[in-house]
């Protein structure tokens, strides 16, 4: 079992006889933020994390050269990452009957798989069922923030008031003005790198110094500007000028996070442990218990309110109860839905907070796959330059269905891309032939390619949902999630447009298009699951109010991406944290007033 490979570095002498002010379930972006805000308001908080605490710096070894690693960064024999074809040909649970010792989601197959083998969950222990889905999970302190892609974007009223704009779905119960001050707080507390663009649909953050562009990206940026479109340096949730936090350093442009599945061992890139949890522990108000998998929110039989959490110790498999006056669920979009559905009681027969029947539904995310690769002829034969010393390449924000109205689809998409020299010349894979000519050609073309891929909004639809599998359970005996989820015609039409638009933009910039990818990647690929406990004003069609507070149970909050009403096409982490900050401030006020 992978979960016991590392002994937790701290003794878990958690006092379970006391009643905490609040229990937070999950230690990722949302749970970490809840812990930060509540402890800074003086509340006594117990943080439960299902995974282990590992010495992350030793895992990531960011600056290790490939040749200094016995397998050039690859995981040992017997470790297998699920491939694109496996996801599509087979059905989950993907690790069932596998001869491999350990099976990971596709992220475990990226270059440097050895560095994430103790971060990603072993699919053998964590089965799920239903429709095909590439579910990427990281169970450890900090969750997926340990390896996130770091693209840190704000949403706008094109998202929060999407229904008002185009008639589809539901508006959020908040507007940009409500969340803007909290985006500012997140920017200042955690640090974000970027370049101001003054776009109404992608509001600027309070940026620290931006990462630079390559020569090819400057060419594309200038050309896009003439089309009224934007290429901006990757807006990275990375501190480039430093923040007041003794656990973090500022970014020195080592590029380590971009060469690997992610991760920053000097913690310039935001991660929840160093950014939020360790500082929260320094207040003296936070108690952490790792290896603690919550499987039920406990209910007071008299009031119907939450009274605590039941959890399994993932090492000794024993069940424990922790008591609190408020329960905050932040286990990630799908795990939070699972926990709510698992928490059945006389008062909440369909799962706690689920009188609407919407828990698990309106499940949405980003669709990806289509993209374009181009050759910048002026760069062929150019001497090598330092192009990858940064957390990411560039971002092309949404340009569809803002002022215009596309015939085939609603909503929009953005592109993430990169270009220039990197540690491995990827074009060697596709350069034909062998010998001196081959070698010279690889060298001359190594820095001349530019590519980008789309991230599109998947519409929130009631029919896309997860529920509990009636039979399959995980290694701890907890019922698994079952998926009922697929992309709709809107996503397919949008993806056609992505490929065409990408090609047009490269051609307009004089970039020779050498590859157009039209394939849609498996559902789940973006690792941006959202929506399974959405906010709203109507308790009949939503699970939470605008403060991520359960309509049904006033001392229950769900502060992660499950609360999002729509997916936007902009990456969710910064919004998850801004919302959690806002809600937890409200929570602390209500708590002090005795209203919970």
């Amino acid at each position, binding site marked *: 079992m992978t979960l016991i490979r590392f002994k937790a570095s701290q003794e878990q002498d958690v006092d379970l006889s006391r009643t905490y002010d609040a229990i937070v379930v999950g230690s990722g972006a949302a749970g970490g933020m809840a812990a930060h805000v509540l402890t800074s308001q003086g509340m006594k908080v117990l943080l439960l994390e299902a995974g282990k605490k590992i010495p992350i710096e030793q895992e990531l070894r960011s600056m290790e050269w490939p040749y200094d690693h016995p397998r050039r960064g690859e995981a040992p024999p017997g470790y297998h990452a699920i491939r694109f074809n496996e996801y599509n040909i087979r059905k989950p649970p993907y690790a069932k009957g596998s001869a491999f010792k350990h099976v990971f989601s596709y992220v475990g197959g990226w270059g440097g798989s050895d560095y994430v083998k103790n971060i990603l969950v072993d699919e053998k222990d964590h089965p799920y069922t239903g429709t095909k889905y590439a579910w990427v999970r990281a169970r450890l302190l900090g969750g997926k923030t340990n390896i996130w892609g770091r693209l840190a974007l704000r949403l706008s009223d094109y998202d929060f008031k999407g229904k008002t704009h185009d008639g589809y779905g539901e508006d959020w119960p908040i507007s940009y003005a409500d969340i803007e001050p909290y985006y500012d707080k997140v920017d200042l507390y955690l640090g974000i790198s970027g370049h101001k663009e003054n776009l109404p649909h992608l509001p600027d953050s309070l940026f620290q110094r931006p990462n*630079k562009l390559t020569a090819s990206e400057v060419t594309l940026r200038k050309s896009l500007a003439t089309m009224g479109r934007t290429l901006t340096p990757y807006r990275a949730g990375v501190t480039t000028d430093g923040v007041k936090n003794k656990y973090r*350093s500022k970014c020195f*442009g*080592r590029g*380590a996070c971009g*060469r690997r599945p992610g991760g920053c061992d*000097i913690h310039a890139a935001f991660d929840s442990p160093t950014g939020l949890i360790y500082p929260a522990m320094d207040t003296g108000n936070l108690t952490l218990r790792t290896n603690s998998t919550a499987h039920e929110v406990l209910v007071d039989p008299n009031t119907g309110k939450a009274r605590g959490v039941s959890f399994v110790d993932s090492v000794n498999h024993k069940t424990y109860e922790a008591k609190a006056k408020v329960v905050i669920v932040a286990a990630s979009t799908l795990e939070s839905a699972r926990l709510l559905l698992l928490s059945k009681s006389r008062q909440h027969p369909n799962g706690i907070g689920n009188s609407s029947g919407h828990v698990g539904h309106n499940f949405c995310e980003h669709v990806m796959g289509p993209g374009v690769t181009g050759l910048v002829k002026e760069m062929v034969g150019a001497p090598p330059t*330092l192009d990858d010393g940064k957390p990411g390449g560039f971002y092309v924000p949404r340009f569809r269905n803002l002022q215009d109205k596309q015939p085939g689809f609603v909503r929009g998409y953005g592109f993430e891309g990169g270009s220039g020299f*990197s540690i491995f010349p990827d074009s060697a894979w596709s350069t034909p032939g062998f010998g001196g000519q081959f070698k*010279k050609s690889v060298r001359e073309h190594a820095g001349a390619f530019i590519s980008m891929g789309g991230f599109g909004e998947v519409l929130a639809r009631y029919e896309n949902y997860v529920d509990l599998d009636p039979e399959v359970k995980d290694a701890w005996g907890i019922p698994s999630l079952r998926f009922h989820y697929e992309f709709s015609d809107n996503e397919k039409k949008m993806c056609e447009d992505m490929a065409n638009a990408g090609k047009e933009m490269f051609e307009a910039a004089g970039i020779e298009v050498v590859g157009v990818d039209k394939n849609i990647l498996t559902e789940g690929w973006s690792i941006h699951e959202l929506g399974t406990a959405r906010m709203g004003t109507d308790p009949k069609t939503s699970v939470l109010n605008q403060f991520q507070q359960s309509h049904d149970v006033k001392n229950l909050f769900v502060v992660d991406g499950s609360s999002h009403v729509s997916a936007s096409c902009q990456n969710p982490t910064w919004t998850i944290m801004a919302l959690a900050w806002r809600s937890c401030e409200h929570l602390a006020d209500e708590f002090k007033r005795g209203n919970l």
Partner: protein
Amino acid sequence: MTISRRDMIQATAAAMALPALAKAPRPSPKPLFFTPAEFALVDEMSDMIIPTDQQSAGARAAGVALYIDGRLAEAFEKDQPERWRAGIKAVEALSTEMHGKAFMAATPEQRLALLTRIAAAESDPKSDAEKFFREIKSGTVRAYYTSKIGIHDDQQYKGNVIQPGEYAGYDAT
């Protein structure tokens, strides 16, 4: 943009604090999977795929065959080493057919003729020897461009360094 000494030390210390976690097998001086004859063929063919030129040494100097050998020796999926072994046999058979002798016994011109023939079908390989070209080319590419020679001498890679001041590159203006 200046950098304080403290920041610098902090960053370096974090990056250096890497205990030797994974002391897995180093490439051994002797092949573990290939027979001496197989090894000689793979070593030669890899060096024909990425030879020494004015810029940098080739696959032989970069230890490509030994790296491939190490991975095959410990492979979990046994079909992969079997595929290599069968591929080498197919190359030997083709060499006998074309030149009446084993690959390593053939002249450099004859070896080149064989490699040219199996590489011609690279985009759509049919015979076992043609499929083997794809296999050994991909193994060579992976091992060479992750080697010291590949990264530093050939590609002259500039990254994986600490940039204490301004980042390299261009501003978005």
